């Protein structure tokens, strides 16, 4: 009896210490999430202004079509997927879902290219690299450790490499697979076209001021495009970062709740065992006394 009591007590202790960890992780994720959200807010004015500038220029061009290298559509032979996952686990199904989205995209959009092993994956984040490599995809770990020191320069290096590879004809299409941040509890897993650049639409609302263009419109657009791509990738990375912390926060909250439930059940069995032990002891004493009295 006493042995069973001790066993239950040990289990309670271990569940409690686990709960302490999950609670701490939740708090840490909440703090990190706030910082990640701040980063998204900080980059928004920049991204908006960049888009605005582009549409201002485009609406001042009469011919409409702009020919630049990064927007040329070619028959898609070789595909690059940039898959953004996290470095650490314990974030619920976050990483698994991104990997699933990437595999589904390959299976539905690029089966022919995959059969000729013309699908390459650049991984950002350790978790996705590990599992996609295990599934036998052609992975590349050059940018795996981006999250160790997340900065715009780092992200820029990735998009510069992708642009260069696209221009050199190493890839005919580049797609991003990542998770868009909706709120702490929900993420949207998306596959987004990165290259070639989607056609720039003339926006009806754009101001048609009489701008002076330095050096000229075409060159300006050619200069703007890479910046916009940098920003797009940076936004994806920031979104993924926020999603990761949101997912981890939710997962850890759930885990703490589950631990509570577990503790409640364990307490009940602990009390039951304790009571049983006392009853047995009492019975022993009473029956011992009764035996003495004869």
């Amino acid at each position, binding site marked *: 009896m006493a042995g069973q009591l001790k066993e239950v007590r040990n289990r309670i202790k271990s569940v409690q210490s686990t709960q302490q960890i999950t609670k701490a992780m939740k708090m840490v994720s909440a703090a990190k999430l706030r910082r990640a959200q701040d*980063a998204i807010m*900080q980059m928004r004015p*920049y991204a908006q202004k960049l888009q605005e500038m582009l549409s201002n220029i485009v609406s001042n061009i009469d011919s409409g079509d702009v020919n630049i290298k990064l927007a040329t559509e070619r028959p898609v032979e070789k595909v690059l997927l940039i898959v953004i996952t996290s470095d650490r686990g314990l974030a619920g199904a976050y990483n698994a879902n991104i990997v699933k989205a990437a595999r589904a995209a390959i299976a539905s959009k690029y089966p022919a290219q995959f059969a000729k092993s013309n699908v390459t994956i650049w991984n950002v984040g350790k978790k996705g690299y590990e599992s996609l490599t295990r599934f036998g995809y052609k992975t590349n770990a050059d940018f795996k450790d981006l999250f160790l020191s997340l900065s715009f320069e780092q992200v820029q290096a990735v998009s510069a490499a992708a642009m260069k590879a696209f221009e050199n004809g190493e890839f005919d299409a580049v797609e991003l697979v990542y998770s868009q941040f909706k709120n702490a509890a929900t993420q949207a897993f998306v596959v987004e076209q990165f290259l070639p650049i989607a056609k720039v639409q003339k926006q009806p609302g754009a101001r048609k001021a009489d*701008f*002076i*263009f*330095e*050096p000229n419109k075409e060159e300006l657009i050619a*200069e703007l495009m890479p*910046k916009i791509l940098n920003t797009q990738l940076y936004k994806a990375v920031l979104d993924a970062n926020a999603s990761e912390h949101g997912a981890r926060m939710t997962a850890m909250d759930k885990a703490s709740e589950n631990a509570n439930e577990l503790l409640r059940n364990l307490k009940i069995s602990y009390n039951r065992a304790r009571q049983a032990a006392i009853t047995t002891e009492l019975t022993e004493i009473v029956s011992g006394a009764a035996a003495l009295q004869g």
Partner: protein
Amino acid sequence: MTLEILTPEKRLYSGDVYGIQLPGIDGLFEVLDKHAPLVSALSKGTVKVLQDKTRTERFSIQGGFVEVLNNKATVLVEGATALD
């Protein structure tokens, strides 16, 4: 005129200024009050913000863009650091 210097990571400068010196891709130029609408690419160099006739602030940039419209200048740069 009002000036905003934006980077992807944060808003670097925001406020009313007297003028601004920029490293244009075709050479250094200055934007003063009531400048005509302008869009220009910037090259690597130093952006000099003239807060008034005596006080200045300098930023080194790797390249970017400037847009002037309605007496409001917006400078978009990647990788800028404050000097001094």
